C-alpha cells in the first residue's frame, strides 16, 4: 500500500510522510508565484487536503504525484490571483512592495531579481520558476502546465531573454561580470 492510499484510509503518519516528501518545493513554487509566504502556506495546505477528498483527479497511471501536486498548486495560485484581481483591480507590483511579501526579500539584489521575475508574463514566469528554481525537466513542466514540450522550451527561452535584458545593469553594477 502506498502512502497516499494509507493516508486516504486515515493513517496520519502516511499523510505526514507525503507532506514531508513534497511540501518544500511546492511551497517555494507557490511562494514565488504569489509573492506571499502566508498565501503559499494556504495553497500548500489546500493542495494536500485535496488529495483526501472525493473525486480527487489524481491518477497515478497518468502522472507522478509530484507533477500532479505542482499542477494543483499552480491552479490554486491562478484562482487566487483571479479572485484578488476581482476584489482590488489595478494592484501593481509597486503597491505590493510594502506588503508582507517584501519581508523575505532580504537584499536589494534579491528584491531586484524577484521583481524582474514577477514582471514576466504569467505564462513565462511559471515556466522559469519550475525550470530554474525547482529544476523540473521540460517534459515534467509540460505535464504540469498541460503544454507541449516545445511551447515550454520557447516560453523558457523568452523568459530568460527578457530577464537578461532587465537584469543586465545589475550584473555589471554588482561586479559580477569581469
Amino acid at each position, binding site marked *: 500500500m502506498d502512502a497516499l492510499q494509507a493516508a486516504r484510509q486515515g493513517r496520519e503518519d502516511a499523510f505526514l510522510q507525503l507532506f514531508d516528501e513534497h511540501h518544500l518545493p511546492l*511551497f517555494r513554487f507557490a511562494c514565488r508565484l504569489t509573492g506571499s509566504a502566508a498565501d503559499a502556506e494556504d495553497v500548500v495546505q489546500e493542495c494536500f487536503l485535496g488529495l483526501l477528498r472525493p473525486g480527487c483527479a489524481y491518477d497515478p497511471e497518468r502522472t507522478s504525484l509530484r507533477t500532479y501536486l505542482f499542477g494543483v498548486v499552480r491552479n490554486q495560485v491562478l484562482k487566487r490571483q483571479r479572485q484578488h484581481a476581482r476584489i482590488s483591480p489595478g494592484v501593481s507590483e509597486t503597491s505590493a512592495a510594502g506588503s508582507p511579501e517584501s519581508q523575505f526579500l532580504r537584499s536589494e539584489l534579491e528584491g531586484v531579481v524577484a521583481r524582474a521575475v514577477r514582471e514576466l508574463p504569467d505564462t513565462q514566469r511559471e515556466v522559469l520558476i519550475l525550470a530554474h528554481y525547482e529544476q523540473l525537466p521540460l517534459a515534467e513542466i509540460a505535464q504540469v502546465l498541460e503544454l507541449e514540450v516545445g511551447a515550454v522550451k520557447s516560453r523558457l527561452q523568452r523568459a530568460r531573454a527578457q530577464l537578461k535584458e532587465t537584469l543586465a545593469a545589475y550584473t555589471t553594477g554588482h561586479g559580477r561580470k569581469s
Partner: protein
Amino acid sequence: MNDTELDDLLDQWTAPAPSPDLRNSLRTTFAGLQAATVPTRAPRNWQLTLVTGARRALLAAAVVVVGVFLFSVAQALSQTPPSGRIPYTVESEYRLYEEGGTPAVAMVTTSYMAQDGAETVLSRSMPGSQLGTLLGRKLDLLLPVWQRMITPFVAPPNALKPYQKAKTAGFHSVLVIPGCADENCLLLQKWSFPKGPGRTGTSTCMDAKVVGVETILGHPTTAVQTNFRPNRLTMWLAPDLGCFPLRINSEQMRPDGSFRVWQSKEALKITMNP
C-alpha cells in the same frame, strides 16, 4: 549577459522556509477530517489499481469463492427489516454528467434519514443493469458488516482515535450519500459532516456555508456548500425531513477555475408514513 551569469543572478532570490505551524495545522485538520468523515468509502484509485493486470484473474477467483459465502450471509441479513418506524421515504435519482454531454441516470434509490442523522438506503437499482443492481444491494448489506469486522485489524489505533473520541464526546453528524463511488455504482459514497451549530450564515442541519433556500417537492430546504477544492458539494437539506438532502450537486474544478457538475442527486417523490 551569458546563461551562467543569469543563473547566478536568479539564485540570489531565495524563498523562505514554510512556518513549522503549517505541518501542525495540516495535522490537526487531518485529524478533524478523520473525525468528521466515516471511513466507509474505498478510494477509487485503490479499486482501479487492484483490478489491473495479472491481479484480475486472482481477484475474479477470490470474488467467486467469497461471493458465494457472502451471498448466503446477505440473504440471511436481508430478511431483517430496519428497526424503528420509518417516517417517510424519498425516491431519488442519481445522474452522472459527461463533460459537455447529457446526464445519464446511474441509480435510483429509496431512502430516509435515520434518527442518528445517517441517510439510510432501503432499496436501490441501477437502470439497465440487473446484475449491478443485485450486486449493489448485496454489497450495501455486507460492507458495513465487513467494515466492522476488519476495521480493528486494518486501521491503526491513531487513525481511529479521533473518530472514537468525537463519538464519545457526543459528536453529531449528518451522513449523506452524494452518489456512486465507482463507475458501476456498486459502492456508494458516504460522507459525514458535523451538525450545524446554528451560527449566523450556517445551517442548523450542517456546519457549512449557506448559499440559498428553496422549496423542493413542497419541503423548504437550505442549500449549503462545502468546498473541498478541487471539489465542491452543494446540498439542499430539508430540516423537516431530518435534514434529508433532497438535492446534491457534486462539482469539480476545471483547470480554468470554473466548476462543472459531474454527479447529482435529485429527489423525485416523497412518501410520508409509508
